[in-house]
C-alpha cells in the first residue's frame, strides 16, 4: 500500500536543522479503484474523477485524480515526519492533473525554525511530482515540535 520509510520516531525541535529534507514518500501507482475509494471517503463525487466517459467528454483525456488525493499524499509525508497533531498550517497549490498509473513522489525541506505563540515551530516547503518530474502540487507547512528539555 505504501512504500514510505519506517514510521517516524517522535521528532524534537532540537533535532531539526534548516535545510533538512523530509524522508521521501513514494506512493504506489494510482489506480481507478483508488479514485473510486477516495471519492467515497472524501465525499467528492465529481464524475470527472471516476467516470472515463465524462473525462473524454470534457476533454481531460480520461479521468483525472482528485487534487485533494495528492494533497493527502503530502499530508501522509507530513504525518510520517512530524506527526499529525503537530501541524499548525498546511497549504498547497494544485499545478497539474494526475492520471491513473502515475507514480507520485512527495518531498519536503525545512526552511525555517522559530518561536511563536509560545511554541517551537518549523516551517517548510513540500511538493508532489510524478514519474516524469512534473509537479502536481506544491505548498508549505508549519509544525510545532516538542523540545527535549
Amino acid at each position, binding site marked *: 500500500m505504501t512504500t514510505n520509510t519506517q514510521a517516524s520516531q517522535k521528532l524534537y525541535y532540537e533535532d531539526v536543522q534548516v535545510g533538512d529534507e523530509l524522508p521521501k514518500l513514494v506512493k504506489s501507482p494510482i489506480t481507478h479503484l483508488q479514485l473510486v475509494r477516495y471519492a467515497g*471517503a472524501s465525499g467528492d463525487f465529481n464524475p470527472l474523477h471516476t467516470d472515463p466517459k465524462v473525462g473524454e467528454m470534457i476533454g481531460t483525456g480520461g479521468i483525472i485524480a482528485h487534487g485533494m488525493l495528492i494533497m*493527502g499524499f503530502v*499530508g501522509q509525508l507530513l504525518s510520517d515526519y512530524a506527526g499529525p497533531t503537530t*501541524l499548525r498550517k498546511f497549504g498547497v497549490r494544485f499545478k497539474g492533473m494526475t492520471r491513473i498509473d502515475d507514480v507520485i513522489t512527495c518531498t519536503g525541506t525545512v526552511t525555517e525554525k522559530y518561536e511563536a505563540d509560545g511554541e517551537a515551530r518549523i516551517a517548510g516547503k513540500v511538493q508532489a511530482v510524478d514519474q516524469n518530474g512534473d509537479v502536481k502540487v506544491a505548498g508549505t507547512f508549519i509544525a510545532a515540535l516538542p523540545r527535549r528539555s
Partner: protein
Amino acid sequence: MFDKSKIGHSFPPFTTEVHRNKIRELALAIGDANPIYHSREAAQAADYGDVPLFPTAPTMFSFWSDLQRNGELAKIGVNVTRILHGEEEYEYLAPIHPDDVLTGVTTIVDGKSRRGKNGSSMDIITTETRYTNQHNQPVLNARTTLVVRE
C-alpha cells in the same frame, strides 16, 4: 465575471460530526497504513488520546456536510460546473477529536476576474470556512481557491 460586491458574503452555517471510521476510510483511500488512523487502541498505544485528525480530513467536513455549498455559490453567480480546485490551505488552531461536533461558516474572502491570452476569462474565488467546536472554540480555518473557467 465575478461580482466583487460578494466579497464578505457568508453562507448559512453547517454542522459536521467527527467520526473515527471516516478518518480511517480517508487514510485507507490515501494509502496511509499508519495504525494511529485506524483504531483508537492503536492511537492510544502510540500516545495519542484517540484517533488523530488526518491532515486533509477537513475536506470531508466540506464535501459531506456543507451540502449547500455549490447551491450557495450558484446563487452568487458562480458556474459550479466549471470549477477547478486551485489551492487549499488549512490552519489548525486547536485539536479536533472524534465525536466533536463542529460548526462551519463559509465566507467569500476574495475574488477577481482574469482574462487569458486567448481572450477567454476566468474567475478566481477564495472561500474561507471557519470551524468552531461544541465549546465554541475556534479549531480550524480552511481556505479554498476555486478557478472558474468561462
